């Protein structure tokens, strides 16, 4: 069966949001029912002899109606939480959802559930009874048999799709705050699943509408009676005050030092609303009679009168939930703010204060936080398919990526370190140490054994410096490497439309911070470097000794311009020694001979010195290369694991 496009429904207490998404392409759109706002108010107005009205129109029409008109009207709101318990609520929900489809048809909006996979959001606390009731309601309203997705998961999926959360982050501890018009819900997701949820059924944006309504009446004495007389109380109290509230909130989000004024022609004015006064009023808020009546209409929830601190209320909903569920702050790595009321600037402030371990960019909020849940739900099937495709592609491309991108990068990084150490060794050990000793030997002469000692001393003398140089050069391997490798990975991942894992590279050059030792100076094997140096120097001396004691030596000495006489003596002596004591003794004897400068200069000529320097460099490099090879493959392994982890994470998302 070819996958169908998706219709998702975030069926809310106050508002219901609809989104559509193609089957294969994770690009959801929110359905606009013509008022330019996302979503439809969850309200139905039954009218005698006429079709019911839904959405904002239903509420407004009822609010505006005269007492006479009201006789033929029945407004039902807040039915969503009751569908499992009350037949009346189920009927209202069914009629409402059916009327939405009818309205969509009238507006020629293409939302036809019969050709779509239909997904309904369910609150994380929802039990089987609620799910069963919602299934019945959706079927009866013409949506076919819906599938369910946890609402907070929708928020997570939305930001995942936006690439604001990486796949590995999505599997960590994500706190979703849904602060809407009527309620405030919290959920902790771990591994993409809701592990804890809690909320407050009374704390919502409409309390702030009420605050602004009271503020307006306080600033405009006599307005209340005036509005009542003109039948405009409802219009001003709900609509205009909510608009003023949102306007104030948006302006304060930009700048909390400016005062806001707003004139309603004929209905009074807001003058110089400041953040300070808003905070003062919110701290000492008492619900008006009007809003307490509105709450009374919803079943079960009553708002008592008396003063309360709205900010503290929000803060406590958060902290007491965390405490009672035993959730340590550190379990939370990402916070997603959803719901329209999370646009209040105090919301991220309070979260930052209560979760101080989070960096600013760990708190996410979209521009339209009220719409993210339905959009996120609708994107689920397409996102899963996409991630499955990406996972397969990553698996296939991984060897090539390592071969063509990572390996050359590591090679050039290692070469940089090798160059640095070899260059230092040439400049210091050779040019300042070994070189001058050899020159002095050429100039002054001496015994080979003392030359051997002297050369060894020159190398040992610089051991500490060499260690330091290596210690300084090693970070070169990592500096930049982390950034460059991340860049390569990011490029590769983004070519597949996914964000780079936020999980950091497990690489650090600071030995104190590392548990493994892939980059300790030990890895280089300083002792081995000395061995390499000594071997080369030893080789030089052996060769020189051989020249002195053997065939080629005789020729050299015989033909040498200065050493002719000496050659005769030496040649005879060595031949004698060889015959008398054997090779070993003869060598010791030769090494201890105090050679005159002429002979020394001949034995160790410029060419030999130059060759020695080259040989030293080559040997050092070979040693370093050999020693860095495991480090290199370990780094390669790290990067490979990062990709494998990502593939696993993508797999896990598939079980969402």
């Amino acid at each position, binding site marked *: 069966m070819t996958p169908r496009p998706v219709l998702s429904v975030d069926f809310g207490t106050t508002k219901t949001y609809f989104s559509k998404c193609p089957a294969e392409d994770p690009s959801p759109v929110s359905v606009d029912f013509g008022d330019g706002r996302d979503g439809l108010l969850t309200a139905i107005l039954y009218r005698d002899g006429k079709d019911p009205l839904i959405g904002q129109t239903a509420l407004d029409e009822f609010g*505006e109606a005269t007492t006479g008109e009201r006789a033929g009207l029945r407004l039902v709101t807040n039915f969503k939480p009751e569908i499992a318990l009350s037949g009346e609520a189920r009927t209202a929900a069914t009629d409402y959802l059916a009327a939405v489809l009818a309205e969509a048809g009238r507006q020629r909006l293409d939302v036809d559930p019969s050709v779509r996979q239909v997904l309904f959001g369910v609150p994380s606390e929802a039990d089987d009874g609620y799910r069963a009731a919602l299934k019945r309601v959706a079927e009866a309203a013409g949506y076919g048999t819906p599938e369910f997705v946890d609402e907070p998961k929708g928020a997570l999926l939305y930001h995942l799709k936006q690439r604001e959360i990486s796949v590995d982050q999505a599997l960590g501890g994500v706190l979703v705050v849904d602060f809407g018009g009527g309620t405030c819900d919290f959920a902790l997701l771990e591994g993409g699943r809701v592990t804890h949820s809690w909320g407050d059924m009374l704390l919502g944006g409409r309390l702030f509408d009420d605050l602004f309504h009271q503020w307006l009446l306080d600033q405009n004495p006599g307005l209340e009676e005036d509005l009542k007389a003109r039948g405009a109380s409802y219009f001003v109290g709900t609509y205009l005050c909510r608009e003023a509230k949102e306007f104030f909130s948006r302006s304060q989000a930009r700048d909390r030092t400016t005062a806001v004024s707003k004139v309603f022609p004929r209905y009074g004015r807001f003058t110089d609303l400041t953040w300070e006064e808003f905070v003062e009023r919110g701290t000492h808020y008492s619900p008006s009679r009007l809003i307490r009546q509105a709450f009374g209409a919803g079943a079960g929830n009553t708002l008592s009168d008396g003063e309360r601190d709205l900010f503290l209320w929000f803060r406590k909903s958060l902290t007491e939930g965390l405490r009672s569920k035993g959730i340590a702050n550190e379990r939370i790595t990402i916070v997603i703010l959803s719901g329209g009321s999370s646009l209040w600037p105090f919301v991220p402030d309070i979260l930052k204060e209560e979760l101080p371990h989070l960096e600013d960019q760990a708190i996410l909020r979209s521009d339209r936080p009220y719409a993210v849940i339905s959009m996120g739900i609708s994107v689920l099937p397409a996102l899963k398919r996409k991630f499955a495709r990406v996972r397969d592609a990553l698996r296939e491309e991984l060897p090539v990526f390592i071969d063509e991108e990572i390996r050359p990068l590591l090679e050039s990084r290692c070469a940089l370190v090798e160059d640095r150490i070899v260059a230092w060794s040439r400049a210091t050990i050779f040019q300042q140490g070994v070189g001058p000793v050899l020159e002095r030997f050429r100039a002054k002469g001496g015994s080979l054994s003392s030359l051997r000692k002297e050369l060894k001393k020159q190398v040992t003398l610089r051991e500490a410096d060499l260690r330091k140089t290596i210690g300084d050069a090693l970070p070169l391997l990592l500096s930049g490497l982390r950034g460059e490798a991340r860049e390569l990975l990011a490029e590769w991942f983004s070519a597949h439309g996914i964000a780079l894992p936020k999980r950091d590279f497990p690489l650090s050059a600071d030995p104190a911070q590392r548990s493994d030792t892939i980059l300790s100076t030990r890895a280089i094997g300083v002792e081995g470097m000395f061995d390499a140096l000594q071997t080369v120097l030893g080789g030089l001396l052996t060769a020189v000794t051989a020249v002195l004691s053997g065939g080629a030596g005789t020729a050299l000495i015989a033909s040498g311009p200065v050493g002719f006489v000496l050659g005769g003596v030496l040649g005879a002596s060595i031949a004698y020694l060889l015959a008398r004591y054997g090779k070993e003794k003869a060598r010791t004897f030769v090494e201890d001979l105090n050679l005159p400068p002429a002979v020394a200069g001949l034995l160790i000529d410029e060419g030999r010195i130059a060759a020695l320097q080259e040989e030293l460099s080559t040997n050092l490099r070979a040693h370093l290369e050999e020693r860095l090879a495991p480090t290199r493959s370990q780094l390669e392994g790290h990067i490979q694991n990062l990709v494998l982890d990502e593939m696993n994470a993508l797999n896990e998302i598939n079980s969402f």
Partner: protein
Amino acid sequence: MADRYTPFGLVEPGDRVTVEREPVLRDETVVSKGLVRRVRS
């Protein structure tokens, strides 16, 4: 009317309305719609 004003509550053809907010127009196109309410007796 409908393309220039949003109704507050239900407004049906023939209803008398008050204009609560004028639409904002730029070169004959609606930048933001106005708002009308039905006059109730």
